[in-house]
């Protein structure tokens, strides 16, 4: 079945089993490997993308549900929050292996778009779905706060 949607602003059409999770469509069909596989069951957050601006776990999002939607992945995320988050991440060297960080960054951008000045509890709420096995959590928290401060100017 042909399914059409926009990815990072570009129209795309794929002809796959409509149950195929968006994750595998992005990675295998479209070659967008920035979105990561970590668990396949919405437990780790590595596969987080935006569907019409809302963060979603692409590993449990059947591609048929996003027909006509706008998808944003780590390769295409932009705007003031994204820039501030990416900059903060680099500035304090958040990543270790980096594998989870696409998902962490997508969740963090979504958080800042929602709440410009998040508390620790807000951060817990938005980021608890994202596992980092290297355990960079202390820096993730700090980088989110730094990005929020930068956005406030």
């Amino acid at each position: 079945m042909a399914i059409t949607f926009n990815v990072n602003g570009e129209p795309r059409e794929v002809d796959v089993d409509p149950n195929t999770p968006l994750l595998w469509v992005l990675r295998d069909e479209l070659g967008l490997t920035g979105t990561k596989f970590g668990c396949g069951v919405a437990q780790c957050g590595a596969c987080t993308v935006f569907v019409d601006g809302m963060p979603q776990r692409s590993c449990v999002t059947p591609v048929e549900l996003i027909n006509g939607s706008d998808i944003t992945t780590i390769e295409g995320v932009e705007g003031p929050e994204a820039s501030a988050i990416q900059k903060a991440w680099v500035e304090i060297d958040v990543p270790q292996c980096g594998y989870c960080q696409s998902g962490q960054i997508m969740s963090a951008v979504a958080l800042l778009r929602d709440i410009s000045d998040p508390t620790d509890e807000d951060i817990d709420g938005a980021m608890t779905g994202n596992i980092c096995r290297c355990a960079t959590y202390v820096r993730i928290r700090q980088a989110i706060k730094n990005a929020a401060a930068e956005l406030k100017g």
Partner: protein
Amino acid sequence: MTTVANDVLSDITNVSRRAFTLGLGASVFVLAAGLKPSFGADGQAYGGDAMPHGLKEDPLVFLSVAEDGTVSIICHRSEMGQGIRTSLPMVMADELDADWSRVKIVQAPGDEPTYGNQNTDGSRSMRHHFQPARRMGAAARRMLEEAAAKTWNVPVEEVEAVNHEVIHKATGRKLGYGALAKSAAEMSVPPREKISLKKPSQFRYIGKGKIGLVDNFDITTGRAKYGIDTRFDDMLYAVIVRPPVYGGKVAKFDATEALKVPGVVKVVELESPPPPSEFQPLGGIAVIASNTWAAIQGRDKLDITWDHGPNASYSTDIYHADMRATAQKPGKVVRSYGDVDAAMKTAAKRITADYYIPHHAHGTIEPPAAVARIVDGKCDVWGPLQDPQAARDRLVKLLGIAYEDVTVNVTLLGGGFGRKSKPDFALEAALLSKAVDGRPVKVTWTREDDLMHDYLNTTAVEHLEAGLDADGKPVAWLHRSVAPSITSIFKPGVKYEAPFELGMGLVDVPLDVPNLRVENGEAEAHTRIGWFRSVTNVPHAFAIQSFVAELATAAGRDPKDYLLELIGPPRRITLKLPELKTDDPWWNYGEHPETYAIDTGRLRRVTEVVAQASKWGRELPKGRGLGIAAHRSFVTYTAAVVEVEVDGGGRITIPRVDIAVDCGPQINPERIRSQMEGAVIQGVSLATVSNITFRDGQVEQTNFDGFELTRIDAAPREIHVHLVAPDETYEEPLGGVGEPGVPPIAPALVNAVFAATGKRLRELPIRDQMAS
């Protein structure tokens, strides 16, 4: 010095076919090993020299300068979050006096005859390669200086390399590294005595912590390529269902329904070799498809009857009880001095405790995955491999092709922690590529596959007994450890732990007690056991450091003071036969027994530093407590203070952790901090929530809902890393950094829970024991 085209410099570039066009041939020779010889008087090799293929330090192999001035530096160790792709090239660049912004990092393929040992494991990369990297950078700097001196026809002593150019001081003439590249390549590599290393005061990057990770931009923009991200246009995608019980195999299977799934191309049966499985694939049934999802769907449709084999009754409940029973009986004595039995008899008080840790999985967020391709009899593999040479050697055997015809390309690793030092998944990819006439095939392990077929950290019962005198000071110490051995994956019938496992915090216990005996009880493995970050240091430190705190309580003493008293006065300990009762001499992480003697002064110091920094002894509100623990591992010293808060329902939060580390010279302090932060939280994870259990030979936790990992909400809110006693000369022996942060965390945490609640927890994880 040679020129090199710029187009070979991508992240996962294969350098094996890189053309060095200038200056090679007769002038190439390898610099002799270590400034401080790492050979003992016994002629025995230690450290990097004792590793397979040893150390290679030929600047012509590792460094090149292009005519545009780009310096390319090869990283031959695998990047898995420890920052080695940044730190090791940074060392070379510093001695070369290169401008970091003009340095490109090239990842080496698996080729130890060329690069020296590449097995990125055991917290060894910087420890073994710091001095060789310095010498290579310094040798190349000398060659550039000689080239400039020759150009200007002046003595080399009159010129100096400074930040990517060579300057003639007297006349102010300058030549950039790029301009000198060609003529420098014609210089011979200077002999050791002509190489002058920088003085630490001249360092630009070493010890400064100013250099960000070289992969940061790619990581934060989704461009970084891990093994699982490898792609080819005509690539096929595979998943495998492996025997659910270690040692099992397929009895019969029917692939009819699987083959009907759209996209499924082929179903392949893979042979299951009988245990011990070493690094070989486990076999099973593979489904090859046009994308990962189709392969997974096809796999779900397979109809398989298994022959579960001899481990089908493995249940960790029963195994735990058996280990506990074994731990009550005398075991094989592995270290002994004094007379423990006599001292126990006359002791004023005797304390006994048993500690338990379950199996623990690596849970790298990038699961094992690899791509293989076979073209014209040549096999190329791409994978997140900690030990690419191990992969290459086994691929040669598996495929029966020449060594030169196997190329193992190392991608970024999405976490390693020891799992990816086993290349079984790369071998699977090669077998499946072969099954489809050499087309590229990517094997992806789903999370379920990863947790069900990991090389798990061992499970252990640690039995401790102490006799205390009337003042509460221990006069006798008995430690009996029971745990299945990693060596069981290499040979059948293994019942005891190997010297390297006993040497991780068990026989090398650095306590000052007059009578001591360490024993090892029998245990046979029923699953694949492997290295997990800090390995058997986890159970040993957990037991010993918990027990010290228990003794402090029994003696009515402050745990920190008591710990320091037990560590005793500063002294250097070298374990020797016959006090050590193992077949081999003291393992000591492969390092020289005198150069790297156990230094109790350093252990005391990290303990004192962390106690002071955490304000040990401070008043805390009800429900809060501090716990302390110290441990030496990977020839580095760490101590931690964990602060916990336990609410009425038994829920634990961790407001703060302090950790002090003394790893000798600190090369990239920022990476040491980040490794410690990660290790602290992995320690919290294994102490509080994570475990792997078996029933009927099969793992019960199949995803992150069962194998829980600490998430941001439960992570310590603050982690303070204290880098202790930096060696300003940078000549002292280096300690490891990747692993030593883990061992003290679990005991410090349970000691803190005891301080907060009076509840002594001796089994990990503590999650289910907090409610009552």
